[in-house]
């Protein structure tokens, strides 16, 4: 037993290596990590966690990525000779970029983590561009003062790229978020052109972009194009819980265009992810879209009960699959409100409350565009 644990851990690692980032890959690596830890093999534990951070980040487990990162960082600080810092710095960006999405992490801790990554990057002579982007995104998503957000946006774009900067596709996609945020629909579409034409892409682009642009296209009345992007984008993202927020984009689009049956099918399929997703922000985005969809179903007024095959993990799960629309709507809204309150309290702002209130505005914008 004691003799072949390495083989077993290696076998788990090999199996994980054959998979794309996903729940099962994360589980395999976690198991292997526990084996390495049980036997006190720090080197193996480090290498496995190095992979685990990737799998968890791109497989939709940002909380697990954070835990694995924290362990590696501890080892790396204790013995910088043994564990090379550069590789971990890449991953630190992913971790710090999402730290704000856990409402139980305090503002002070977030600020400390940002200051810390800035110091870490300075130590290896990296430029400020990556950190400025993180600061901009954090300030924006925490609802900080608009002038400060604008200042960081401008500072980010004015700073040159360096060896630790995210790829061009990702950076361009991140720029789009800004224009969507400020309602510059045409600008977002103009900038997205290289992505949409397939000239600029990466592991997550255009996957994310196709969801981001749905609302701008809807606002510009380009419904045919939006429908095409919905089809393409959804099939690229629907298998990976890392794209929970993107599912929210698609769900919102379906509700806005009156494709309620399709919307319910999407809700049915992805609700599970919102129940235990590490990112409360992504949960929130999906829940808001789900609330909006159910509001549309209520407004259609032709049925009080919908049949859904929801996961057993859903607290209000019903074996017969019959769900009262009103009750379901109330549940989604309550979850969304709870998360909004937690974020807004932590942030000391009202961004999430405002995002929730956006549903009312959306209700006035509905425009039927059947996809079937």
């Amino acid at each position, binding site marked *: 037993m004691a003799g072949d644990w390495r083989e077993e851990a290696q076998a788990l690692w090999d199996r994980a290596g054959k998979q794309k980032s996903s729940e099962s890959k994360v589980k395999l690596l976690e198991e292997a990590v526990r084996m390495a830890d049980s036997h006190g093999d720090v080197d193996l534990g480090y290498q496995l966690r190095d992979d685990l951070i990737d799998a968890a980040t791109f497989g939709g487990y940002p909380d697990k990525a954070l835990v694995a990162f*924290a362990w590696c960082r501890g080892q790396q600080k204790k013995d910088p000779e043994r564990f090379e810092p550069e590789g971990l710095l890449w991953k630190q960006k992913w971790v710090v970029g999402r730290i704000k999405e856990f409402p139980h*992490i305090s503002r002070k801790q977030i600020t400390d983590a940002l200051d810390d990554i800035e110091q870490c990057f300075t130590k290896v002579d990296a430029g400020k561009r990556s950190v400025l982007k993180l600061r901009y995104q954090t300030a924006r998503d925490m609802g900080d003062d608009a002038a400060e957000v604008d200042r960081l946006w401008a500072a980010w774009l004015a700073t040159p790229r360096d060896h630790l900067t995210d790829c061009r596709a990702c950076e361009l996609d991140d720029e789009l*978020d800004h224009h969507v945020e400020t309602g510059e629909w045409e600008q977002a579409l103009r900038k997205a052109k290289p992505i949409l034409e397939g000239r600029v892409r990466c592991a997550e682009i255009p996957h994310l972009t196709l969801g981001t642009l749905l609302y701008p296209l809807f606002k510009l009345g380009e419904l045919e194009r939006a429908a095409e992007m919905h089809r393409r984008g959804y099939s690229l993202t629907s298998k990976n819980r890392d794209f929970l927020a993107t599912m929210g984009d698609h769900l919102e689009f379906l509700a806005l265009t009156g494709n309620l049956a399709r919307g319910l099918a999407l809700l049915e399929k992805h609700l599970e992810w919102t129940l235990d997703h590490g990112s409360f922000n992504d949960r929130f985005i999906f829940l808001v879209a789900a609330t909006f969809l159910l509001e549309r179903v209520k407004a259609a007024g032709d049925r009080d009960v919908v049949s859904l095959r929801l996961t057993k993990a859903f607290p209000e799960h019903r074996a017969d699959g019959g769900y009262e629309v009103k009750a379901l709507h109330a549940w989604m809204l309550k979850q969304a409100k709870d998360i909004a309150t937690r974020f807004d309290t932590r942030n000391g702002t009202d961004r999430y409350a405002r995002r929730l209130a956006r549903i009312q505005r959306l209700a006035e914008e509905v425009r039927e565009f059947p996809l079937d």
Partner: protein
Amino acid sequence: MPRRPRRRNLEKYPPGGSFPARAVPWANVGTAVDHRFQVSLRGVIDLLSHHLYSSPGVYLRELLQNATDAIRARQHLEPEHKGTVRLELVEKQDGGPPTLVFSDDGVGLTEEEIHRFLATIGESSKREALEDRRKDFIGQFGIGLLSCFMVCDELLLVTRSARGDGRTLEWRGRHDGTYAVQVSEHPLERPGTQVFLVARADMVEWFAPERLRQLGRHYGGLLPFPIQLTVGTERERLDLDGAPWRRDYESAGERRKAMLEYGREVFETDFIDCIPLRSQAGDVDGVAFVLPASPHFNAKQKHRVYLKHMLLSESAENLLPEWAFFVKCVVNANALRPTASRESFYEDSALSQAREALGHGLRKYLVDLAHEDPRALQRLIGLHGLSIKALALDDDDFYRLVIGWLPFETSLGVTTLAEYRRAYPVVRFTATLDGFRQVARVAGAQGLCIINAAYTHDAALLEKLPHVVEGAQVEPFSAADLPQSFEELSMDERDAVFPLLRTAEQVLAPFHCGVVVKKFFPAEVPTLYSADEEGAFRRDAERARDESDDLYASVLEGVMAAAGGEPAQLCFNLHNPVVRRLAAVTDRTMMKLSVEMLYVQALLLGQHPLNAQEMTLLNQGLLGLISAQLGTGGSGGPESDGGVGSGGLH
């Protein structure tokens, strides 16, 4: 919208740099003057060979493409025209570089068209511009011809248009950008085009007869007209006389044999079966071959695809649905859009419809197998279970059809799901190997059949069961569920273990671990530790906190505070003699120490790594036990009050 940061990855951006590009005004034909492109032709050729084409051999593909387009254009004028492409290799007696004469009897070029293709060459200095130009016949012609400069320094083009005045024109171009146009002194008898390529000294290998044969077959094997290669006095046909899958065969058996033979030729693999493919969307047809072994990685299969019967790519990936990685295929598409590199198809709605239709064909094969030859399907499941499971996850009808035949590993051996359900009303599974290990032995001993669903797709497949099969019951199972199947204590036993229960609760409270006492098998197992997934994650976080620096340790405190889930549990087994003795011990210190050690032992047996606090417990506990043992071992030590040390924990 709030989003996440991402990683560097396969960044793709167009090659930089552009060339001054403009063709000189057209000079009259017949004056036979030398002209010069105002363009760095070297640069364009460099661009082509480094950024657009994967190998110099592509020149033959481009020539075939030009010939195909020309023949199609002629057929448009004369529907009866069959078309033929001839390659003649002229090898020099003196060992000088050979010449390839490449001829077609297509539509030919008029004077004005030569003019246009020259303009194309002049302007083709950017990859995007090149791609745009490909869309029309002349543009493609010019770019195709340009690719010949990868293998030769000088080109002679002799052409007579089916639409023109009957004159034969000659264009002679050199890689340095000079060219001359004139009326040919050797007029062609019929419309068509001849290209003379003199091999460049360093590229002679691309003109070897064997290479020409191989390239011609490779790119043009499926073309719907003859392609003849002449070397000296030898003449042979390079085309396959149409796609093998479209031919008529005497019987289904003959067809299968011929297809498998074809598959072997193309992929050098002995496939186990073949499946016809067809899609109206994209006008696609072809054949899929079932791989003889499960693919090593769940990497996508690389397929061979033809566009309008010309080879487009040998590594197209995006043609079949994701689940269908148990086949490799050869297909021809007439109406799909190639990507810029012309090595796969552009991801548009025609492609996604075609993919759906092709997937449908593969699915039909599996469904027919299920109805007509279930044993063959079972063999296929053994070989390509992953593909089949992936499809079943996406497709309810297919799921119903195959789910019963899928084999699963359980705590009582391997069984199909149908057999399992015949024997047990409720399907119970663990979703991780870790979880399975923790329960398998004990569950087996209680006669519980638990499925190990740690393998790819298994858990999702089982969770789907009640949604698709009426009345089916499925429950995830973990070590925490085991005690429910254990025997409860009698009233007397409850009284007897009460002190142990109380002590253990106090000892383990700081470890977020509750305590129960029950009776279960095997009796050698003294305790069973169980934690749900969130509990396991909490333990991971604790270890990370122990190892990390102050900043991240404090961040992790926040994460752990938010973690939900049930507390872990340590279940004592009263069938176990040690536990029975322990329950009777009156020395509280001894009892505490023993509980701590049993707790640590249970963690280690369950492969739960210890956190710093537990590690301390282990170290101090071991010392404590040794010292207790030493104390009583010396024939009746001072503290001997009938404690467990006298025999409980050997």
